[in-house]
């Protein structure tokens, strides 16, 4: 009887360890990119995904207690929906004058999100800040001003010549 009880116990323990039980097992996270997520052939709809990218928007209103952040990854930007406190660390978003914060997003992809009117989005479960965004150096080329002024001088000369002709004077 003891043997049967020990064997039964062993089966139950093994079953708990080996059989993935919903709520206990860790769902696999798939490393991906924005371009793959938006391809519609990734087969990742409803999957837990992780991708790295640059924040390119302010934290936009996303309903009670939530915000939207747009993240640019491999040339394709994805809308990421998250609790407002998760985005608390974000400071710099990418634009002409700045490179935005670089983040790693872990969340669930919806190719047609029921909560957000069918949008393709990711509902974030985790957001890690990799690097802080910074301002970008954009030096201007002064020769362009020279070309512009020369062009304006030529145009002015031409305009005066045209006016003289219209007034009956000599060209």
């Amino acid at each position, binding site marked *: 009887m003891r043997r049967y009880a020990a064997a039964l116990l062993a089966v139950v323990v093994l079953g708990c360890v080996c059989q993935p039980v919903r709520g206990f097992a860790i769902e696999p996270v798939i490393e991906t990119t924005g371009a793959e997520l938006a391809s519609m052939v990734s087969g990742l709809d409803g999957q837990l995904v992780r991708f790295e990218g640059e924040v390119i*928007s302010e934290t936009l209103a996303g309903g009670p207690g939530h915000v939207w952040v747009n993240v640019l990854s491999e040339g394709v930007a994805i*809308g990421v929906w998250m609790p407002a406190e998760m985005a608390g660390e974000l400071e710099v978003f990418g634009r*002409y004058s700045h490179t935005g914060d670089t983040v790693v997003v872990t969340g669930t992809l919806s190719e047609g999100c029921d909560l957000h009117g069918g949008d393709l989005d990711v509902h974030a479960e985790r957001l890690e800040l990799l690097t802080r965004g910074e301002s970008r150096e954009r030096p201007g080329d002064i020769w*362009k001003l020279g070309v512009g002024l020369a*062009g304006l001088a030529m145009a002015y000369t031409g305009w005066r010549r045209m006016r003289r002709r219209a007034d009956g004077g000599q060209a």
Partner: protein
Amino acid sequence: MWVGFERRDLGAIAHYTGMLVASMALLMVIPLLTALAAGEWGPALDYACGIGVAAAFGMLLAQSAPRGTHLTRRNALIVTALAWLAASLVAAVPLSLSGHYGGFLDAFFDAVSGLTTSGLTLVQDLDHLALAHNMWRHLLHLIGGQGIVVAALSVSLGLRGGGAMSLYMAEGRDERILPNVMHTARFIWFVTAIYVTLGTVVLSVSNLIQGMEAGRGVLHAFWATVACYDTGGFGPQSQNALYYHSPIFEGVTVILMFAGTLNFNLHADIWRGDRKEIFKNLEARALAINIAILSVVVGIGLAATRLFSTPGEVVRKGLYHLISANSGTGHQTLYNAGWANGYGGLAFAAIVLAMAFGGMASSTAGGIKALRLGLIAKGVVLRVRESIAPASAVVRSRYHHLLDVPLSADVLANALMLFVLYVVTYISGGMIGAAYGYPIGEALFESVSATANVGLSTGITNPAMPLGLKVVYMLQMWAGRLEFIALFVLVASAIAAVRAKRGRA
């Protein structure tokens, strides 16, 4: 009869083309001021250079003839065809200097796309583009949507006199809304100003509520309004309308796209208080039937994919993209790749048809136009009635478009001719895309989008696409915006000039 050119013809063509090009220099002051206000010194220099180049090039051409030179109808068509190209060339200068384009051709592509209100783009790293460059890209929609000639007429830029009316008609405008062409041009701008102001105010409030910075929020609102009302399709962000995550944004932009596709004569009737015209007008009816049928088809197509779980999602996505396609705007809340891979064949086909059919004549929309489709449908019914009537019976048909008019053979032939020209161009562009190795469905989608000046894309249009295909799409956008005739007159006149030269030799 093919008539060759005299020296004074060439002078007049160069003069008016030059005046239109010079007007681009004046308009570039707006992005220059935007750059200065935003502290974008690099882009400010790009526009300083662009202004100089446009002014010098324009004035050089304008000196070919004195001011007020008479312009014949043929020469007006040639000026219109050339001005759209020449204006695009100078508009591309600051864009190409931005460092966001693979080369001048790519910037030229975007300038043509902007002016023809197409919305296809080859810009790189759009999400980091300067405010000044975004201002210029959207201003191109505004100028192109109303018409370069209309823009120049409104500020009376040396276009008074004999040439004004010819130029106005040559730009694809069928009717004079007011007796005076200058007043007509100003009325078009008046209507535009009302929609742009209202749209900008409402979208600014929406953007600020969403949490955007004040300056960016207002600028984005202005650009979205211009791009939608002028049925353009450019956006300041790579996600286009999806960037804002706002149903209010989507709702307002749908209204603006719809307003942009209305004939300016209908806007005038609404302004005068004659709202009955909308319900009687053949073109309005044809557009309503077109949208109703294709909406159902898109809805069924999207629902069949099972990607969207609720009818609300299907309606929201389906209607937005159908209005976007039918109006020739090209704004989207779905990703490009989805058209080829995710949204099903039926929705794909319905969107292609909506793009091909287009909006109303004398609006900022492109495509075959609802009026022509309505006329052709009337013609088919007339022919059936003739077939079943007694041989001695005289069967006539009438239609209402601003006035009650009989359906004449000339009107029907003109509508059919343009229908055939559009369809041939759609198919030709699709076959060229297929020859470059793209799947025929996607190639056709892109070809229709370019010719009908829509801007929706399956992803074929990108900086890495073949150079030849870039040129083909530019030609399609140009020909589609001018509705072919001005382009044909240009080609025919060039051939006639070469023949005349050979004859003299």
